[in-house]
């Protein structure tokens, strides 16, 4: 039996098999990982009418029923007020963030949240807001307003939020 042949020489990165072999730089196959920190964006001040708690424009959230993607009648005044503001202020842009409850696949929930954001976007464009004033995105289940795990929390998290430029 050839015992020599079963003694395979395997190379790990950055090493040589014998002392007289060529020195190689340490390629990172051993798994060295560099750490990166992601920067997030800080907000700016908005006009008072968007922040005044007595003004309907301070309301930014549209809540949805379970497995539903329709803007309910009770939230139509809010969406209409924002449409009116955006038509009158064409230099303002908004980000609509769709959200879901925590149940199920994260990526599928991202798609469901997108349907909610798109629903709000469609109402706004029908009311005359330009497409280039709106970006509809989804946060899926990733940013729950209520971190609980019951029906109350889930209802609060099935939501579309309107953010003005400066807030995102």
């Amino acid at each position, binding site marked *: 039996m050839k015992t020599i042949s079963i003694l395979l020489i395997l190379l*790990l990165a950055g090493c040589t098999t014998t002392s007289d072999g060529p020195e190689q730089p340490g390629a990172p196959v051993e798994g060295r990982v560099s750490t990166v920190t992601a920067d997030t964006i800080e907000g700016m001040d908005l006009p008072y009418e968007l922040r005044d708690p007595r003004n309907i424009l301070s309301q930014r959230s549209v809540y949805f029923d379970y497995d539903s993607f329709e803007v309910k009648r009770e939230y139509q005044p809010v969406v209409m007020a924002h449409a009116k503001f955006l038509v009158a202020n064409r230099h303002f842009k908004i980000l609509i963030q769709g959200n879901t409850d925590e149940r199920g*696949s994260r990526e599928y929930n991202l798609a469901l949240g997108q*349907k909610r954001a798109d629903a709000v976007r469609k109402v706004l464009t029908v009311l005359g807001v330009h497409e280039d004033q709106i970006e509809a995105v989804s946060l899926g289940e990733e940013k729950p307003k209520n971190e609980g795990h019951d029906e109350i929390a889930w209802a609060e998290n099935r939501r579309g939020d309107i953010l003005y430029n400066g807030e995102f």
Partner: protein
Amino acid sequence: MRRFFLYRARGLIGLAVCCVALFVLPARAELVIDIEGAGARRFPIAITDFAGDPDASRLLVSVIRGDLERTGIFELIYASGVSMDESATPRYADWKFRGVDALAAGSVNPAGDGRRETRFRLYDINKGTALAGSAFITSSMPMLRLAGHRIADAIHEKLLGVPGTFSTRVAFVVKNGSKSYELHVADADGQNEQVALRSKEPIISPAWSPDGTRLAYVSFESRKPVVYVHSLASGKRSAVANFKGSNSAPAWSPDGTKLAVVLSKEGGSQIFTINADGSGARRVSAANSINTEPFFSPDGQFLYFTSDRGGSPQIYRTNVNGGETRRVTFQGSYNVSPRISPDGKNLAFITRGEGGFRLAIMGLEDGQVRILTDSGKDESPSFSPNGRMILIATEIRGRGVLSAVSVDGGVRQRLSISAADVREPAWGPFNR
């Protein structure tokens, strides 16, 4: 149930440098692996202590023994205190008497410049022959650990006919409160854990490039989902899908040249392919419904994905270059997160039943579905590169943990970090 307490390599260095501080500061998060349901008949194997440097031998042998034991397939026969190098002939009769079927022995010796040479040999005790052997040069502790994993891989392959995955890596996300998200990369045994990305905003859906050097993932750091490709060694990252709307669900083509992603730029969630540098976006899905979670078949010809076109989320398959789309799952009203086994024969997915969301596997030829877990919040499956295990995220007592489940459902390993949520696992490819 057996329990292994594993400490981060970093923590060990810290222990040596400043043991006083340890009494003052809270202990570092501890990675714990729990194992359940080992096979009824396990393969009896002995790993002797290796000859040469005793400290290096202790580390190396503990890595090899730990790897093999955690599979639930091997029964480790006690062989501590027996030191044997790879050139000695084992006393076959003695080991046979102790019920050992296979024996591994070896040595770790200095090779100059702080490097070490590790050699090992595997013996068939019943036949009285050598089965395999190899040698490694290492220059650091992580590399010595990797040599141990490679030896365990070789033993696994020689004895079971399937390569081991001990030298592979896993990626996962650690959430610590609502403002701390970290993308971690660790060895398959949970050791050598390193942080690739820290963010105040969520990170989801990491996916390994086929060469194991990059991760694609979705980051919410700009208040919306954007797909990044991140080179692990350099930390260089770039947004490869940052179109208007949402960008998500990256999946690599098997040749590593393309990614399938989900974009909402044309309204709704639609599957596109892009080049790995972000150029050349081309729409694949046509239906005006949700189309998401794309995953390439191993031959690169097909994309499996989740769609609600039939009224409930189900898994479908389409040709990457367009053409006929066919439905793959039919049982139940919620089947999502398709992943194809490396041999292309099985589909792992998450199904919702009465007990909640569970990992299931389906034979693509016979359509037989088996539920592999009894948990209620399973998510994000990924196959080990040898196809024997499926890594998922699940929840225990309200906390996110990872679980590796054998495809026959028999063995489970659980990986958790105290006081943090662990989620979104992705099992990396074989090392080359």
